[in-house]
């Protein structure tokens, strides 16, 4: 295994971590807002806040980790994406700031107003939309080279069906992942009303999610044939991913073992996410940038990997403790304890 592959694997694993934990977070915010809008906040709000409150900062760090890692392992990619993504990423930062502000002012600061709940809920949809644009751009065709550097063609990006399909996939996936997780969490909390509602949301979002996912593969053929062929080459990973999806759907439908359903969902998304990532190889940005020509020097790569292993040694036990105290603590999950400062 080359250093380039180790580097991108590490980052891709962390990005996957972000996709899962952030989806839960974004979707939960949206469901919270939606149920408030429908006058059903009594069903969901408590359960959602109980899960989200202690972990949201950790969610954010996954993202920071990913982009700092890109700068470290693939500095040239930082240059290309940095130059072209000023506007979409700035918008994402502002939206992330709205979420942070919600935690600061509403959750911790007790500044309560429905307006904030709606604003917070909507950012849960806009952030995945704005971040998923990066994946669209990476497919090539939206960046042209001028003499002073790469430039993003906004018009082309806006009118491309691929853009909107990926946005749609990010939205449906966020809601679906979140709904399945919250079904399981509410079930653990012995909150039947919330379990039933989340299960319903999960079943409703499952179908559009899988349809858009399939649709994107088809669209890729006309947008980027090279990538399309590599995707098809990995058909077995997508097939396996689809089977796991059917498993989750079946279990939810039958109201059985929500924990397993969540496990299958994570399996489903990891397979699809990695199949996508592998098929993207060797390009970081079609057709300008590959892993190899944007990679850092050997000394830095080695240092980063050593730091990464040492860091994991510190993080994994800490994350275990966090989950142990909040996700797997019966009294906390059931809402019998609060213990907030």
């Amino acid at each position, binding site marked *: 295994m080359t250093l380039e592959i180790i580097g991108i694997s590490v980052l891709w694993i962390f990005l996957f971590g972000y996709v899962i934990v952030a989806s839960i977070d974004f979707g939960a915010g949206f469901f919270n807002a939606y149920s408030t809008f429908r006058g059903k906040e009594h069903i969901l709000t408590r359960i959602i806040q109980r899960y989200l409150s202690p972990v949201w900062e950790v969610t954010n760090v996954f993202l920071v980790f990913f982009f700092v890692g890109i700068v470290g392992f693939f500095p040239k990619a*930082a240059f290309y994406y940095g130059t072209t993504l000023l506007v979409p990423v700035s918008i994402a930062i502002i939206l992330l700031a709205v979420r942070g502000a919600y935690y600061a002012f509403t959750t911790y600061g007790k500044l309560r107003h429905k307006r904030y709940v709606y604003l917070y809920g909507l950012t849960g949809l806009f952030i995945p939309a704005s971040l998923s644009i990066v994946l669209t751009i990476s497919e090539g065709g939206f960046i042209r080279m001028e003499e002073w550097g790469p430039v993003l063609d906004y018009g082309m990006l806006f009118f491309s069906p691929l853009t909107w399909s990926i946005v749609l996939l990010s939205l449906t996936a966020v809601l679906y992942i979140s709904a399945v997780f919250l079904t399981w969490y509410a079930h653990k909390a012995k909150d039947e009303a919330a379990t039933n509602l989340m299960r319903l949301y999960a079943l409703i979002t499952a179908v559009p999610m899988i349809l858009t996912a399939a649709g994107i593969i088809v669209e890729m053929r006309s947008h980027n044939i090279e990538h399309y062929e590599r995707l098809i080459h990995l058909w077995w990973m997508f097939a396996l991913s689809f089977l796991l999806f059917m498993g989750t759907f079946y279990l939810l439908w039958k109201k059985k073992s929500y924990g397993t359903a969540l496990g299958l969902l994570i399996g489903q998304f990891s397979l699809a996410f990695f199949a996508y990532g592998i098929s993207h190889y060797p390009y970081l940005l079609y057709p300008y940038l590959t892993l190899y020509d944007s990679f850092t020097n050997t000394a830095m790569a080695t240092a980063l990997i050593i*730091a990464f292993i040492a860091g994991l040694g510190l993080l994994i036990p800490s994350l275990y403790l966090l989950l142990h105290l909040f996700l797997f603590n019966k009294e906390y999950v059931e809402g019998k304890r609060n213990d907030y400062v």
Partner: protein
Amino acid sequence: MMVNEEAVFYSRVLTELTLSFHIIYATIGVGIPLMIMIAQWIGIKKNDYHYILLARRWARGYVITVAVGVVTGTAIGLQLSLLWPNFMELAGHIIALPLFMETFAFFFEAIFLGIYLYTWDRFENQKKHFMLLIPVAIGASFSAVFITIVNSFMNAPQGFDIKDGQLVNINPILAMFNPAVPTKVSHVLTSAFMTCAFVLASIAAYRLLRGSRHVYHKKALFLTMKIGLIFSIATAVIGDFSGKFLAEYQPEKLAAAEWHLETEGKAPLILYGILDNDEVKYAIKIPFALSILAHSSPTAEVIGLDQFPKDETPPLYIHYLFDAMVTIGMITVLVALIYWIGTVKKWSFILSKWFNWLILLLGPLSILAIEAGWWLDEVGRQPWILRGIMKTSHAATTSGQVDLMLLLFTGLYIVLGIGSIVVLIRMFRKNTIEQELADQGLEKAGEHL
């Protein structure tokens, strides 16, 4: 290379804005965990509920600032690549290691902060809960250490060679431990601890001025002023070492900050004054002081601005930033020292209204000093983004939309700034310490001490 002058200008303004805003929350984020730790530890040791409550109430306010700090920290983290892509490509090759480690430190801090906040009454043994704070404080301090290492590298780059325009012989460890690190890192840490102690002292002084006579505030004031005194002295001493570092490695920054125009020995230190056609007027000149600051010898020669080409020296207004920083530093040491001696000797004016007003000013003044210090550091490095290697104007993005982003972020920071102040005031205005103790039926707790 083509330079988009407008993009350079707006990139600078946006970065200045983001950093100036972020540094307030970052400083609080680095320093407060230590204060909470000290208070909680004293509370457990002395079995004094007031100190426990002190820790608890500080922690409650602290979360608000951390949450905003996370947001602004993410913003600056991304803006580095968005606004300075050429610099980040170069920096990625040489100094990415501490940047990467910083995310681990913050990760560590975020995890334990979440746990600490939500397990306040969960453990029978209070010490167990206290232990959770240690990784928070360590994570917070190390975040500062790693980020300051990156900034040090920008001032004193090393650990690589440039051959025919190519980077060679890259050594990330050597780059990390560059000569600016010892003074810069320790100055950032001690000044953060000092600032946080004085901010908390200001709050206690405010409550006393508003008429509360509760012993809780007196305990808070005495504790924070003592911590503030220690760290303000430490900051001043390290500031002196920083002068020696600059004289050796960045003489143009020192010369500009001190308005030291001609290279000479027995150099005086210039405070305040104005510059009129390269002539310093109305300034206080402390004989030999600059030679002592730079080289620990009253006769030592100090390199002046005459040794550098005009287009490679920073703007001379940084002298006033230096003045502001040093003046505030002196005031804080002095007030804290008088307070401490006065408390021991039982001088009555320590308790007077005007002295409380003076203490109240220390918090805001310390934050101003932090701002002045960072501006001095950043503007004092100009025109370089990476001293001697890359100019700021060559590092910026070529994008045409930076001005629009500047407007967006200005709006964001206004909302966040006002929001955090409003929320913090709301949080504590009604829920005074008297109220909180009454709610818990514990009015007498801790009074026996």
